[in-house]
């Protein structure tokens, strides 16, 4: 699709992710998606802004909340819906589900439901990039603030800094590890701690602004591609829906609706209804086709149960 400018291209990509997830919300009560879903609604700009400057050969590792990164990195939408439906045509043949999307053909290297567990994978892939002289390749580890509690995160920062590896740590901070805030979990200053490894740090509080994310992140990508050494960026964002599931949870008491409204008030996907109207029909048509594909695809059967174990 051709776009008149970068803003509209990124807007379109972010809107597409949101509409996909809104369709998931509509479908969910039908029980056709038989797995937990962790929605990225509110966080789309981070994925879109970051992936814009990545090449398909750049590898990205992420977590169970990965619909946005899967799509932003170029993963196939029909295969994503088929995977959510548990169909054999899914990106993981129905064996992964929402939490384990993968699209290695575009560098989406697998999403794990164990918090922080793919951060060392990104560092290891960066080690391979360096050793095997893939001099143009950049590796990205995407994780949330919960992951910054984990030992694997600290171990990964240390090794990446020690061996000067071309990896970008994308700390997508939506404010909550499930329901708990970072202040109740950290005795340390998160970014100061990163700096103590000698890793350069960037911070962006406007996680809703895909243009800003793109601008800052593309600079980091260029830098890491050249210097072959790590960088960490924290991008603040906000998860509009509950941790897992399709509902809102502002009556649960751990956060206020005012907090949400603050983020919504600057959300381009809400503010710019003109562009929404421009691109929505085509996106809905694409989503309709993808859902249709998932609905009509066959289930994996007995012959798939024991394949690819070893």
């Amino acid at each position: 699709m051709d776009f008149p400018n970068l803003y509209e291209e990124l807007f379109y990509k972010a809107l597409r992710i949101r509409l996909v997830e809104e369709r998931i919300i509509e479908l969910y009560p039908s029980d056709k998606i038989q797995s937990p879903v962790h929605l990225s609604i509110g966080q789309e700009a981070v994925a879109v802004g970051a992936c814009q400057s990545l090449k398909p050969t750049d590898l990205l590792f992420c977590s169970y909340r990965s619909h946005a990164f899967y799509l932003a990195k170029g993963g196939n939408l029909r295969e994503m819906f088929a995977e959510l439906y548990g169909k054999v045509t899914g990106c993981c043949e129905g064996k992964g589900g929402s939490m384990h999307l993968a699209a290695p053909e575009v560098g989406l290297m697998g999403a794990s439901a164990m918090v922080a567990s793919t951060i060392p994978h990104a560092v290891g892939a960066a080690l391979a990039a360096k050793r095997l002289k893939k001099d143009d390749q950049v590796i990205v580890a995407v994780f949330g603030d919960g992951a910054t509690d984990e030992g694997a995160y600290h171990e990964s920062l240390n090794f990446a800094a020690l061996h000067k590896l071309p990896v970008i740590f994308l700390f997508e901070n939506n404010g909550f590890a499930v329901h708990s805030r970072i202040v109740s979990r950290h005795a340390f200053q998160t970014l100061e701690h990163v700096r103590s490894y000698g890793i350069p740090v960037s911070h962006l509080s406007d996680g809703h602004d895909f243009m800003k994310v793109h601008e800052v992140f593309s600079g980091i990508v260029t830098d890491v591609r050249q210097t072959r050494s790590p960088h960490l960026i924290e991008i603040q964002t906000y998860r509009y829906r509950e941790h897992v599931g399709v509902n809102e949870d502002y009556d649960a008491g751990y956060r206020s609706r005012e907090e949400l409204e603050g983020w919504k008030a600057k959300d381009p996907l809400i503010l710019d209804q003109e562009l929404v109207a421009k691109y929505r029909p085509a996106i809905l048509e694409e989503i309709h086709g993808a859902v249709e594909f998932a609905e009509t695809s066959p289930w994996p059967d007995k012959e798939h149960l024991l394949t690819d174990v070893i």
Partner: protein
Amino acid sequence: MSTVHTMISGTESQSVGEAMTYREALFQTMREALRQHPNVIIMGQGVDDHKGIFGSTRGLAQEFGSERVFDTPLAEDGMTGIAIGAALNGLYPIQTHMRVDFALLAMNQIINLAAKYKYMFGGRFEVPMLIRMVIGRSWGQGAQHSQSLQALFAHIPGLTVIMPANPQSVLECYPYAISKYRSPVISIEHRLLYDLKFRVDQASTEAKGPPWTSRKVRSGRGVTIVATSIMVLEALRAAEHLARAGGIDCEVIDLNCVSHPDKAVILESVEKTGKLLVADTSWQAYGVCAEVCRIMCEHAPSALKAPVVTVGMQPAPCPTAKTLEDLFYPSLEALTDDIAKLVTGENNHGIPLPDEHSFADVYKRFKGPF
């Protein structure tokens, strides 16, 4: 320790081959892997120091460079994840743990990630890597430097778990894992095997198919002994003694691959002997002993003419006091007695037991290096 153990895996040939220690076989496979495959790296705590994982990697960092053979931070979980990521992007990592116990710190990456990556993503990824872990025993290794945790790993679909009992198995399994196999392999080595010499047949190490097979290492008609790792040696010593002292004819099977035991080899043997003893380096409950019993019960219970006997460590953490440690591990004397009882059906079988208190005499001389 000048004894040469004349075992040639997969055959019962006593033909003279080159004599080689377990350590030398490990070193040879590590060096050849680096020499033949530019994408191989060896990573682990101490791989590049003067001890070099009990000699199995000594000098390799100097020969192949610190980019390919490197020391790691004491961060087992993270380092295993880094190995997985490296494998996903084209390297073949060989990771070492100087004790099996240390790998417990990496269980998330081993079980939740390495074992799952291929299946969970519909076959779209492969994680070819080798994780070497060493079992410690004797000289007060104690509760946290002595565990044989093969059952924990072999329980998990997606992992291939081997326990090479001799250099021949090392020479067959490691090159195959590194050059032909595309899934994670966990190899559990026994520290006390490192110094022992065996005859090997280097010419037959070129595996025709996957070498994850169980191997008949002694033929006999009186009883089938299925054993792992150093217990294969113990079983062979007991078998030789019983042949001399009691006319008992033992068949010994080296299980070799713990995750995928060769059912046919076990069943065929027990169909012939009617009696089964399982000797493992670990605890019996829920482990190799239990699994071999499951195989028998499910496939050929009527082949058994007597109840199965299992031999392993006592159901306690490993103690350090020598008096307790000697009781904790199965001795050659007790193993021999168990076999004699099973074969004769008599508790007072009258067959003299070995003079040496146990193969632990070898262990008793062991005072490191660790």
